[in-house]
């Protein structure tokens, strides 16, 4: 990809902020690792060699009977019986962490939550599930939720802000009053009411938080458009006969982009916090989902097992710090007041 000069300068300035630059790489590698969660933490083996044939249990469901077992259902690779069947005529390649986020370790030395050991590196939660596996999956779902929410709320927010700022007058006044009323809605209560009607899943939660969270960028974009619509070059474009939509998105939006892009990492951080707090309160993702908020809640309920709270806190805190550091570097990169 070839960047134009301005973007090259920006990338340069972004790199000049060493903390933000390394944060970006660290965050990206953590995110990529978590995207590959199925390969890293899985109770199904990655590869099975059985009777000179290869099987990929983490991708494909194989019935136990295929390995000479008795049941027609999917093989349980954690079962000693199945393991023996396979190792007799082949071998098993396990994932580095042989637990998925739902896997219950029945074979714990102490009652759950059990402390860190060489099997469960960060111990297990109160249902005997591996904390590391839940952190990896929880990190992934948090970041994905944050990204989706940031993406959609930016699109809606920018469009709403652009229309209000560009047309001004009555549209602006009505829009602003609507936003004031709308942002006063008690989101949490609506979620509680809603969760008594439907079982909120990922998309439900995304939809609802989006419904009440798209206002973040409206203010800044609206302000930029209010300013921008009186610029001489906007008048000049109108004098050329350019249409409203084209003026909004080609001529004014690029000016609002700097302010918006600067906000994005912080919106992302905020979105992740929203999901975590909903999960913490028990109004978030369905029971059993891997979630940092739920782990925090468990930590609070099991103060005798500090590895729960500490791990969840550590992951959440470092994720948010990384995002803030990246945000600072992005702000530096887009700051027009820094000389070129």
């Amino acid at each position, binding site marked *: 990809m070839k960047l134009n000069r301005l973007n090259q300068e920006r990338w340069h300035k972004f790199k000049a902020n060493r903390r933000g630059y390394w944060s970006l790489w660290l965050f990206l590698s953590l995110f990529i690792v978590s995207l590959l969660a199925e390969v890293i933490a899985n109770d199904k083996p990655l590869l099975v060699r059985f009777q000179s044939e290869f099987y990929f249990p983490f991708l494909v469901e194989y019935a136990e009977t295929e390995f000479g077992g008795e049941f027609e259902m999917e093989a349980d690779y954690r079962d000693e019986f199945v393991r023996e069947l396979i190792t007799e005529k082949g071998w098993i390649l396990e994932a580095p962490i042989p637990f998925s986020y739902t896997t219950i370790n029945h074979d714990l030395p102490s009652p759950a939550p059990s402390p860190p050991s060489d099997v469960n590196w960060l111990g297990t939660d109160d249902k005997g599930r591996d904390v590391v596996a839940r952190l990896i999956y929880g990190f992934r779902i948090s970041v994905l939720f944050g990204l989706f929410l940031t993406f959609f709320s930016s699109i809606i927010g920018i469009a709403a802000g652009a229309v209000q700022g560009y047309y*001004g*007058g009555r549209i602006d006044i009505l829009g602003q009053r609507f936003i004031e009323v709308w942002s006063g809605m008690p989101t949490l209560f609506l979620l509680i009411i809603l969760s008594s009607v439907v079982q909120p899943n990922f998309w439900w939660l995304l939809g609802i938080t989006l419904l009440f969270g798209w206002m973040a960028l409206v203010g800044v974009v609206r302000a930029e458009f209010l300013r921008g619509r009186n610029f*001489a*070059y906007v*008048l000049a474009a109108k004098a*050329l*006969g*350019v249409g409203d939509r*084209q003026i909004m998105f080609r001529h004014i939006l690029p000016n609002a982009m700097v302010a918006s892009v600067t906000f994005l990492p912080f919106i992302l951080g905020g979105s992740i916090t929203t999901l975590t707090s909903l999960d913490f309160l028990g109004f978030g993702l369905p029971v059993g989902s891997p979630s940092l908020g739920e782990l925090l809640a468990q930590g609070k309920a099991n103060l005798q097992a500090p590895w729960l709270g500490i791990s969840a806190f550590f992951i959440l805190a470092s994720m948010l710090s990384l995002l803030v550091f990246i945000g600072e570097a992005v702000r530096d990169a887009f700051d027009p007041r820094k000389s070129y």
Partner: protein
Amino acid sequence: MTDPVLLKVKNLVTAFDVESGVIHAVENVSFDVKSGKTLGIVGESGCGKSVTSLSIMRLLPKPSGYVVSGEILLDKLDLLKLPPQEMRKIRGNRISMIFQEPMTALNPVHRIGKQIREALHLHHSEMSDALILQESVALLRKVGIPAPEQRINEYPHQLSGGMRQRVMIAIALACRPEILIADEPTTALDVTIQAQILELMKSLQKESGMSIIFITHDLGVIAEMCDEVVVMYAGKVAEKANVLDLFKFPRHPYTKGLMASIPNLDMPPKEKLQTIEGVVPELTALPPGCRFQNRCVFQIPRCHAISPPLEQVHENHFVSCFRWQEIEAKTNSH
């Protein structure tokens, strides 16, 4: 004087809603723009020159500014009655405009080439990309920009003020408009660049045969550029004449005052320059009668009661003053 009239502005009244009420920034302004000729509109700041041009383009700041009455006829087509879609087709295509500040009239985030392409693409969507590129380069070359093939990939901040004004002119001329409205195009430029830009506009006019509405407060520029002149004062036409006529025989006391204020080379050095005493009346608190009354050396009681109509002196010379005949006699006796 047989040039056909291309654009006819008739009794234009433009008002603005402000906090203290409604102000009439332009009142009863009429003039004709003849095909291939240059009409100058001259007057001091706030006299309604720019508002007149924005009224023609229908680009008055919304929602405070609006045209109250009048007609703006382009070939019998009343621009004020056109739906927005139709008006958009006229802008840039038949009437184009260049602005005072070349520094701000170009979008800083787009390359020069893209901004020229926008104009071409808008009104000639059938043109291929290669043809548009070729045409853009040709336009830049025509307005005297060296190495246009490279300039096309540069951003406005990489160009000097004069270069940017040339680019503005290139964009305005991209669709070969019949009328070019130039709203103080040289005010922000230094004098040598100003002379170059004026020269360029004249040669482009000669080549394409377009009409120009030239708005300025610089009488020197008017003398250089225009065929006919409208002198505006506080939103009204004070005097309207052929350029030679106006400079030789100014009939309105305001025009006379302006002419007298121009420093002359024969004047002894360190002499105090002549000025018109007083200030322009506030548009929110206009006196009844003539708007120039408080600064006029020729004022009579009648000026305070009735607004003088625009009277015809002779063909192509109109003046709005009760005492123009006396003033004329005085001028001629000198």
